[in-house]
């Protein structure tokens, strides 16, 4: 599935742009400019290295704020050389970003426009401003398109193409239906929550997906917590699989397995895990 979209091509392009800016940096006539261009080049290269085709890193805000700040700083430091780039604001507003970030971009754009327009004749400054505003609105229109797409599918997307790893929103939907299904079919289903460290999360998620059968979904709840619904014929078999799972996981911070029939809500369950004293807690089915 990876081959459907050529992420390597974009990576190469990013690196090329990074090298181009680095070349500009070493030829820059003044020190502040040189520093800013080196920063830009570094940003491009690091982005290229981090790039992958998954929802693992949704657009991180501080990381996206950097190009806006760099552009503003460059126009501010040497307007005569970088005024060509003024129009790039219309593109930066096209990137997926939270509303306040769009506000910051608009603000920076008007500040840089003002710093350029201050020394100009009024009609020219007004024309530049009007054109910039119009182009930024076009960028915003493109942004809206993408945001609509994201809003529609945010709750149902897989996090990595081809892997049965889903978002927490999906687990909230799945919990009641899996519970009803387990009850009707007379099988044993339990929710396993695993708390790990920030760095271990993604490797662990992949291992969890490999361990689970295809019909047992895995979920990423937050930056340190994963979930898995285990489905077995009866409680005995479930106990065996839980043991296998614990052996496979090795060292984790917290582990909590609860029969689906005993779960009130996902929020309560996470709360209970946060408070549990033992590393491993198992809540068994209620037998009257």
């Amino acid at each position, binding site marked *: 599935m990876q081959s459907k979209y050529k992420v390597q091509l974009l990576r190469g392009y990013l690196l090329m742009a990074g090298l181009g*800016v680095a070349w500009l940096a070493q030829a820059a006539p003044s020190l502040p400019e040189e520093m800013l261009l080196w920063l830009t080049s570094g940003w491009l290269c690091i982005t290229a290295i981090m790039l992958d*085709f998954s929802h693992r890193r949704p657009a991180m805000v501080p990381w996206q704020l950097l190009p806006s700040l760099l552009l503003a700083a460059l126009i501010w430091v040497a307007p005569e050389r970088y005024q060509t*780039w003024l129009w790039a604001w219309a593109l930066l507003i096209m990137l997926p970003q939270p509303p306040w970030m769009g506000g910051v971009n608009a603000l920076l754009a008007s500040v840089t426009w003002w710093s350029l327009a201050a020394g100009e004749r009024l009609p020219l400054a007004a024309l530049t401003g009007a054109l910039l505003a119009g182009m930024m609105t076009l960028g915003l229109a493109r942004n809206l398109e993408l945001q609509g797409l994201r809003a*529609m599918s945010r709750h149902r997307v897989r996090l990595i193409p081809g892997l049965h790893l889903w978002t927490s929103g999906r687990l909230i939907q799945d919990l009641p239906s899996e519970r009803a299904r387990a009850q009707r079919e007379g099988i044993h289903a339990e929710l396993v929550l695993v708390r790990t460290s920030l760095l271990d999360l993604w490797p662990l998620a992949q291992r969890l997906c490999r361990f689970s059968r295809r019909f047992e979904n895995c979920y990423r709840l937050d930056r340190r917590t994963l979930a898995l619904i285990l*489905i077995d014929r009866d409680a005995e078999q479930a106990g065996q699989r839980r043991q296998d799972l614990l052996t496979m996981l090795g060292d984790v911070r917290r582990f909590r397995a609860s029969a689906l029939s005993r779960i009130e809500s996902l929020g309560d369950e996470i709360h209970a895990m946060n408070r549990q004293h033992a590393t491993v807690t198992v809540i068994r089915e209620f037998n009257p």
Partner: protein
Amino acid sequence: MTDLLSRVSRLQAMVFAAGALLMAVHGLWLYLMGDYSRLILPATTVPLMVLAAILRMGRNEPSRLSSYLVLIGGYLLIAVELIQPSGQASLWLGLPPILTLLVLPLGPAILLNTALAPIWVVLLGELPPDPRLVIGYLTLVVMAGLVPWEVLRQKALMRVTDPGDDECSALNALSLHDRLYSESQRAGFLDQPLAVLVLHLPQLEMAGEQFGPKARQALLDAVCQEVEKRCRDNDLLGRESSEDFWLVLPDTSENGALLVAQRLEEGLQDVVLLETGQVEVRLTPCILRAGESPEHFEQRLMARTQHLADP
């Protein structure tokens, strides 16, 4: 989604109209100043922009013609500005590549930007041109292309990770096969029966061709709604190909599947659509055999679907 798209196209049409207004004001000012020789620019760009706005207004699909009209208007404006010795050449030089990227898809935009680079340089009038200006322009073109590219990547990612179909509330083929595989594995593992109803909509293609996309959508929605109404929470409706659907019924025996098929047929008989009339659907159940592998079952289902489509 269509709502959003129409909002987007309205927004774009408004910007184009504002551009036309701006040029009209500019023309009026030139006229009042008695500068008749320069009137030709607003006189050509205003109609172009107005036409572009009108073309963009009516429809949700981006219209290529209106994009090109806007580009021509923008290019003319820049070309005239570049020729004048205002000292602002480097400012104006940045506008055309960005405008191109804003209104055209990435590929054509990059081609056009590269092709136009020498023209802008010649219009600047200095030969040989200032290398710094040329490099600045090229860097801008390269860097600016990154943004639409990132947007494309996000869209592609959304497409491959979203299990839903584009047109209706069923699963798409990719996730349907994925879910079918896992459901057959689950059935084998828990010793449960598994049934799949194969649905074929013979009217769909005809509805699209004769009555347009709205009739086609109405038909799809009617079928999806009816299936949703008649089925349990765990039953999965997926779209195998444009006219064929698979309804996966976990823990259902052959008798159960026949019952579901009968109920569905009866339910769909009551649905009468404006253009296409009574909804016609061909149904056939297919049961997972004991010990059958998911792959084999899938192949059997595909053969059954093919058989149903051309009887």
